[in-house]
């Protein structure tokens, strides 16, 4: 069925997280994405957990299954001449190529953009790498923690008297994938007008230092000097409140209401109108307000502990106070809002069966929704792609398999 990006063909050489999330976004909105994996071994993400029922099988990685929905999978050995030749035949057929190898790799394989653009002048080739295709750190090695450290963010994350903290999971790589798809779509739309593609160089480090959040941290320092650099403040910024996680009767809530215009709302919400003019908390007297942070906590905490999370959220939101429940992952799956909006989706996979996955980041009302196709088994679409696109017959495929090319 016609989807938003129907008609766009993508050759996906990427592996692990950043490249695959970029191509997942294209695939989930209807582009035809052909994922190319090494014969027998496949994408390294197949070896990363969590695994279905803790069985570390290459078709059971939850990370891989999530990142590779709606893609077709082929195998191809790029380290031999026969494989390279087949790859070049495939490149001819597509609009977009995405890879996230270390920067020296494509050149070493003889598949640099300079070579590929001669085969397919309209090709948009996106290369996502840790530090970019050039520069002194070009060949530096990185994992998620390294990428996150070399950004404006890790320094501020954690407790003041402890080591800085990385974000859970693979947030830097997912972000690079999201930013990568923005640059890819932009270059692609341009190639549709001009008839010519180009090479898109995306660096994880630069994504994290870019707008919006990275850039604001940097500019804040540029404008106001060292005083503006947010060192780790821990769970509360002394004197700035209410702005923290607080417990209530049956869970936790997070409140972000430290702006002056929210104080009257807080007073109304707590049923304590006297707070508005209470000199201990006056915004006009920052010193006093700062000194009485604990006094405020002593008022808020007992009030919260008498009420359920649901009550607290509803009553605060009725006063337009930015207060939300602190969910654990099971809460997220139970949440009424996500379920009402149909965010989660069930996907049927030949090996793990039916499982609930995160769905689309946004819906397009004019485009019919279709169920997600599962991530491909290794080499699942060899016949369809090599046969359908390149005209190879069964004998050809058997030969290629026997020689380890696919």
């Amino acid at each position: 069925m016609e989807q938003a990006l129907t008609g766009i063909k993508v050759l996906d050489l990427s592996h692990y997280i950043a490249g695959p999330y970029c191509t997942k976004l294209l695939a989930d909105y209807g582009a035809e994405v052909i994922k190319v994996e090494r014969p027998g071994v496949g994408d390294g993400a197949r070896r990363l957990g969590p695994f279905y029922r803790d069985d570390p099988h290459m078709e059971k990685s939850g990370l891989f299954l999530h990142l590779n929905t709606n893609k077709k999978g082929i195998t191809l050995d790029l380290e031999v001449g026969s494989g390279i030749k087949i790859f070049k035949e495939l490149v001819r057929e597509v609009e977009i190529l995405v890879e996230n190898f270390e920067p020296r790799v494509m050149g070493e394989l003889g598949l640099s953009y300079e070579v590929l653009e001669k085969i397919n002048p309209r090709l948009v080739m996106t290369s996502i790498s840790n530090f970019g295709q050039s520069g002194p750190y070009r060949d530096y090695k990185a994992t998620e923690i390294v990428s996150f450290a070399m950004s404006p963010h890790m320094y501020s994350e954690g407790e003041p008297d402890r080591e800085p903290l990385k974000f859970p999971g693979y947030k830097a790589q997912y972000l690079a994938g999201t930013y990568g798809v923005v640059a890819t779509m932009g270059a692609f739309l341009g190639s549709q007008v001009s008839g010519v593609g180009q090479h898109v160089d995306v660096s994880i480090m630069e994504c994290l230092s870019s707008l919006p959040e990275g850039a604001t941290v940097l500019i804040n320092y540029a404008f106001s000097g060292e005083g503006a650099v947010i060192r780790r403040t821990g769970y509360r910024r002394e004197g700035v409140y209410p702005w923290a996680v607080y417990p209530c009767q049956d869970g936790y809530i997070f409140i972000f209401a430290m702006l002056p215009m929210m104080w009257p709302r807080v007073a109304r919400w707590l049923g304590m109108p006297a707070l508005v003019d209470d000199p201990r908390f006056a915004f006009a007297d920052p010193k006093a307000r700062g000194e009485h942070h604990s006094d405020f906590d002593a008022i808020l905490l007992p009030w919260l502990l008498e009420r359920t999370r649901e009550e607290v959220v509803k009553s605060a939101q009725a006063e337009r106070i930015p207060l939300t429940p602190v969910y654990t992952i099971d809460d997220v799956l139970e949440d009424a809002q996500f379920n009402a909006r149909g965010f989660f989706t069930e996907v049927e996979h030949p090996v793990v069966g039916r499982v609930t996955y995160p769905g689309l980041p946004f819906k397009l009302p004019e485009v019919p929704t279709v169920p997600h196709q599962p991530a491909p088994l290794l080499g699942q679409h060899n016949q369809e792609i090599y046969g359908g696109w390149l005209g190879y017959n069964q004998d050809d495929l058997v030969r290629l398999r026997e020689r380890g090319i696919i």
Partner: protein
Amino acid sequence: MSKLPLEGIRVIDHGVAYTGPGATSMLGDMGAEVIRVESIRRFPTMVRGMVARPVREGVEKYPGYADNDPGSRPWDRWWQHHALNRNKYGITLDLSRPKGVEIYKKLVKISDVVIENFSQGVMDKLGIGYAFHKGVKPDIIMISTSGLGDEGPYKGYSTFGSNIDSVTGMMSLRGYPGDDMMIRNPMPVWSDNVAAATAAFAAMVSIYYRNRTGKGQFVDLSQVESFLPHMGESIMEYTMNGRVPLPMGNRDSSMAPHGCYPCRGEDKWVVIAVSSDKEWQALCRAMGEPKWAKGKKFTTVSGRWHNQDELDGHISRWTKVRDNYEVMHLLQKEGVPAGVVTTPIELYEDFHLKERNFFVEATHREIGTCVYPGMFFKFSRTPARIRILPNLLGEHNDYVYGEILGMSREEIAQLEEEKLIGDAYLPEVP
């Protein structure tokens, strides 16, 4: 110079705070003509200051303003605006009056995309919701971003920054292993990054679809839903195995050593991640083959993982007497993933980012010389650059009303006279 990829696409930017402005700057960076609509009557949230006129008697420094100085046009000197709003034409227009809306219609008629992230209901209250836009231009693409979405039981919920993290489950996972849930840091904020890029992507997906089918789109983009796929594997752990994930801090499920280690000086750190026996041997080489590392318990992947407390202790003792940059370069030379935990100061000084020309030094009409963070991508054939610096309030009124909308000098003067447009906040705006 070659045409930038999105040249010919016109975007109306109603963004406030981070998401809307970030998304439209990304499109502007790639060549779209972004027209940012502001108002001299209404002071926006987290864009041009906390208040329009911050100067108070006795106060000398004003953090957040360029050089901590509000000057005579404080709204043109605020850090958030300078970080987020480049490559845009800035106009002012009073959309609370019918005449303003009539002029706005002219702009909509010749535009492709409208992006807004006001609180839920604001656009509708002004009478310029999607129905209005569609009436003016049937194939208009409108992206509306909000914390939780415009539909559903929590629609219209007020959310800022880390509120998104609390609802996605991210906040429950941000922490040191074994921490109490109370100990959760409200900074840094991250979700706006994802929402901004997702909104830019949604706009381009919609443009491609419109080019093929002639149909526009209204996209109700929930920041939380944009972010949830970034939690994919945590969600799958629960949906596949029924387990609720807990914070892992700087530890990894299988890599060891893997963590953040103190270096010489105050608050200086380096992160190290060893993912194989080969990298372990390289680390030992870099540390000068210390005796403790020869222990059998550290030779294997499993051994290192099970003994990581002791391992971290040894490594910390080694890093503590060394400069963090020295450690990074030394380890990288041997092929070990390692990185400095950088401060903003260090990023501005970083010789790799300088070589990459990531930062852009420019002279701004109001604030003078400024070094702006640049692009997160490099296009080989049509290089992107900062073509328009963050706009003064109403800076491009003449250009947009005159050149793009074809109004005469007299007509524009009349709009200024009626205070529908202007280049300074009205005196009654505090």
